[in-house]
């Protein structure tokens, strides 16, 4: 199986990463050599194997729905690239 340029561009859209034409070609090459290496898994028959989803054999714990952190709104907003009062600002979404 090979990953073509069209697939790479589609994946980059899904991943929300803009990609120049030249870089896309290099990426396609890299991905193909990595997937060639990954294909080795097809040697194994795994129909009757349970997938391992979590290495820690615990069920998720419940906790009370209670605020435990201090009021850190100011500090959180300080990291924002663009803000207005208590809001994060993004480019206009609705026309």
């Amino acid at each position, binding site marked *: 199986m090979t*990953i073509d340029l069209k*697939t*790479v561009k589609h*994946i*980059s859209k*899904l*991943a*929300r*990463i*803009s*990609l120049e034409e030249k870089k896309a070609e290099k*990426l396609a090459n*890299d*991905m193909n*050599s*990595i*997937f060639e*290496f*990954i*294909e*080795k*898994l*097809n*040697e*194994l028959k*795994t129909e009757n*194997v*349970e*997938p*391992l*989803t*979590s*290495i*820690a054999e*615990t069920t*998720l*714990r419940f*906790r009370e729905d209670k605020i435990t*952190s201090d009021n*850190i709104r100011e*500090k*959180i907003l*300080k*990291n*924002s*690239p*663009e803000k207005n009062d208590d809001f*994060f600002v*993004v*480019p*206009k*979404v609705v026309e």
Partner: protein
Amino acid sequence: MTEITSLSLFELIKNIKEKKISSNEAAKSFVDRSEKSKKLNAYVTENFENCLQLSKEFDNKPNFDLKLPGIPIAVKDLFCTNEVRTTAGSNILNNFVPSYESTVTQNIWNEGGILLGKLNCDEFAMGSSNETSFFGNVQNPIAKDLVPGGSSGGSSSALAANLTPVTIGTDTGGSIRQPASFTGTVGLKPTYGSCSRYGIVAFASSLDQAGPMSKDVEDCSILLEVISSFDKKDSTSIDFKRNNYSSELTRNIKGIKIGIPKEYRVDGMPEEIENLWKKGIEYAKDCGAEIIDISLPHTSYALPTYYIVAPAEASSNLARYDGVKYGLRSSGESLIDMYEKTRSEGFGEEVKRRIMIGTYVLSSGYYDAYYLKAQKVRQLIKQDFDQAYNKVDAILTPSTPSSAFKIGEKSNDPVSMYLNDIFTVPVNLAGLPAISIPAGTDKNNYPLGLQIIGKPFDEQTVLNIAYSMEEKINYKNNIIDWWME
């Protein structure tokens, strides 16, 4: 007297408790040496002024009951530190200042440790040579233009160069053990669930673990004891009874059964690695251990499994970097355009490559063929270990298939770079504890490490075997301070 910076953590604590050295004297020594070691590029963010101030405060009101009384410690820049910039080695977090503290670092400060600075690492811990960091290559103090390993490369470099008495790293596929092996130091990856992941910049959540890095095994046990804790803030943290690792440390491993997995004799493995392993087996026998041949039949499938699971989880974890709430933002004509440009400019090549692989294997129509398949093979790999542990208490392997390589030597070939983790990755997939200890050198006099893998939650046996073998190996780093200004 020996220089303060070359003391072990154990000796440093002893001297501070006996009031032979003050916390401030210790801080000054490490700050001074770090200032003169800028060529190593081990630090991303220095916290020197604060560290000196806090050490004075400790000396004014000392508490010698703490496990790390007034000890300055630099940590990998993957741990969020309250009010101190945390970059994860990435441009996208270049200006990020957390408003909270990771549990593991908080545990260190609670026991009297003082933050010396934040150490360089591969971007989002994705790399085996520290070459993917936005903040540049890190030099290995062993020799000029040699990689310090990765992803905890700033940590291993700073530790081997005596810029910090101990440090902490994170290990997703070998990122503590491989850099420890490359720098002649000790690094331990604990059992998954031992050390909280809260406040660690996430890479692959089902594999990531924080762990101690140190100059010797005793120091490693002291630091593990501090950082390992049950934490409600991490949903996969495990509530088990933790040992007092340092006080229970013993060299008596008589009768312990150590397995030697034949599948780790990989094609093309250099003879010096093979010889190191043979020597390691002899050392283990000398220590009183019983050597047993075992088989881990799915070993060769571990790396391909890892290169599905880790990128898949990474692509999901890194979806949060969108230029809205924190981190870098590039300007765009629309919201989507802004996202795409931010992520394109903010992430480096290796991170983008892994996000792309991860997005692909999770995308519609491919999930079963790749991600589900990898999870099934991961089960088989874990079962290999479960079966082996019916016969043995621990497993001995080389830590890496080679010694440290030159900067630039492997950076153009992702697969050859990935092969570096061939002996460490299976351990993360199975969630097991494992340590790397220095055990010899190659023909260039570069350090080589041996790995001891334990049963889940049995860090104590791993440490004891390492402690016992360390005495027999008697490895000494021969570092000549070539970088000092």
